[in-house]
């Protein structure tokens, strides 16, 4: 698949970025490192001494019961929520706590939201256009013109997410599943180094889930992917390493078989919602 090979083309990932952004340094093999991160909302500890390390090129699944803090963790990584304590590093060069959301996005962290948020008044095509890796400052944005190459990329992503026939429709009229796909497409257009994917298959049919699984596994390797998902079948189909989050901290980590055999995990999570 040529799109996948393009996405793998690491040489071109950063040349679009504003000059103030230096590439992520992963020579220790770790792309994301969180240490002793805690955050409270009105006294309620949503994240509690969380420690997590994601290797460069890894595909990591994160599971955990509702309210475990999975989305909050992504909020912290992407700059939406400031932790009370702890460290969050992107590679060994970038302390993410020093950056805001746009800066973190420009560093190469892309995010798909749990509740799909697309720009409803804009067409599917325009949604992808805005997400596309480009110089995102005001003046270059005003002068931006799509090159043939960029149009081709958008067309390829449209094919991949199965929305080619909807390209001119406002994103607002898409079904829930189609919005999920559009968000995944927007993520691909950004060519991020690290993808944070929150519940990608909610609202998707079985064959669509399979396609998503295929897509995410093919992205891993050259990209690092963190997937939060409730659907155990889906997690089993893509997981190499699974992290179980419970009450804001890591309860268990390991292969799917290891964690599902872990008695603590069975107690808090898998027991009530068997796979």
């Amino acid at each position, binding site marked *: 698949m040529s799109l996948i090979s393009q996405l793998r083309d690491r040489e071109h990932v950063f040349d679009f970025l504003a000059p103030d952004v230096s590439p992520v340094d992963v020579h220790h093999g770790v792309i994301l490192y969180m240490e002793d991160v805690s955050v409270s909302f009105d006294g309620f500890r949503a994240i509690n001494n969380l420690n997590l390390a994601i290797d460069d090129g890894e595909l990591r699944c994160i599971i955990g019961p509702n309210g475990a803090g999975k989305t909050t963790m992504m909020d912290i990584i992407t700059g939406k929520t400031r932790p009370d304590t702890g460290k969050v590093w992107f590679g060994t060069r970038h302390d993410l706590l020093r950056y805001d959301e746009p800066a973190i996005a420009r560093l190469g962290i892309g995010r798909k939201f749990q509740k799909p948020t697309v720009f409803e008044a804009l067409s599917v095509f325009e949604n992808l256009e805005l997400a596309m890796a480009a110089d995102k400052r005001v003046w270059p944005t005003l002068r931006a*013109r799509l090159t043939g190459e960029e149009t081709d990329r958008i067309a390829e992503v449209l094919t991949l997410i199965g929305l080619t026939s909807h390209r001119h429709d406002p994103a607002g009229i898409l079904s829930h599943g189609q919005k999920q796909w559009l968000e995944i497409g927007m993520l691909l257009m950004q060519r991020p180094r690290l993808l944070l994917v929150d519940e990608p298959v909610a609202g998707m049919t079985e064959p669509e889930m399979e396609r998503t699984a295929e897509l995410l596994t093919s992205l891993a390797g050259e990209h690092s992917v963190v997937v939060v998902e409730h659907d155990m079948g889906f997690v089993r189909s893509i997981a190499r390493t699974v992290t179980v989050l419970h009450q804001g901290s890591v309860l268990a980590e390991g292969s799917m078989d290891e964690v599902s055999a872990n008695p603590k995990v069975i107690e808090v999570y898998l027991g009530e919602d068997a796979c």
Partner: protein
Amino acid sequence: MWWLKPAHEPITQRVLGVLAASTTAVLALHLLFPEGHALHISTYTLGLLGKYLAYALLAVAVDLVWGYLGILSLGHGAFFALGGYAMGMYLMRQIGDRGAYGHPELPDFMVFLNWQELPWFWHGFDQFGFALLMVLLAPGLLALVFGWLAFRSRVTGVYLSIITQALTFALMLAFFRNEMGFGGNNGLTDFKDMLGFDLREDSTRAGLFTITAITLGLGFWLCRALMLSKLGRVCVACRDAESRVRFLGYRVERFQLFIFVVSAMLAGVAGALYVPQVGIINPSEFAPIFSIEIVVWVALGGRATLYGAIIGALLVNYAKTFFTGLIPDAWLFILGGLFVAVTLALPQGVAGLMKHWRWPRTPDTTTQEARA
């Protein structure tokens, strides 16, 4: 080039066509038919129409920030008034020694207040070029500082609307004070001429009307060009899902600031066109209610179309002239009633109605993939 894009767009072609045709028609009726003829358009009416066109430009400026960026500014009257004052100061300086007190340099109100010399901020306004620069810079700088503070702290929505009202109210109180040096309560008036043209002359009025129409056309073009660019699509995205835009790497506050400043400058230009045609500028333009009225024009005409703002400004102001002539005290009630009626019956304003009935479906934001 981004600024050439509207040339290919049917909406711009149509709006500018209608504007050009009606401007020419009005001028023709004014010039070709003698006074007293049934088809003659009087100088008074011409001045009135010129005033409406200046308001229309102001409405376009408000639609740019409200319709496309979702920032409901209830203080655009302030930018309009600042542009108006900058032009008024030039016109005051042009009076020279022909004022009632005959002072060679000081405007009448300063002589009246026993001031001995021109305040520093009145210097330079005898130059037309400098005054024009100030027409852009005064509202632009205010918008820059205000917007920078507000957008940086992510103040949006109702809070922003309220502080814009506070801004224009504060400026109104300031300009009411004689010590401010802007003529206080009475403002600036008794203008004589502009660039050597007598403002009471018919031909000057016709010229001002024409320039206002052309500037409105250019302002419309500029806003259209901005909104047809990728920047315009980022604005719409900010309007609908501001935080999502940040996660794509755009600095939302910079886009908001840019458009807010452009809009304030356009409002200033509208004010500068308004003043010579109306012959006076006073602090009432800063009144909070005026800024709210502008928003009503845009809402009535239809948000996020730009031409809707023009239609709204023309219709409401025509209605205002008509009804205040008929029943002077009832205008605010009529305006309020109109607003409620249109919001309920035509949520997309008059423009929405037109789109529905007659105009071909032309999306407001056009993909240019075909031209890439």
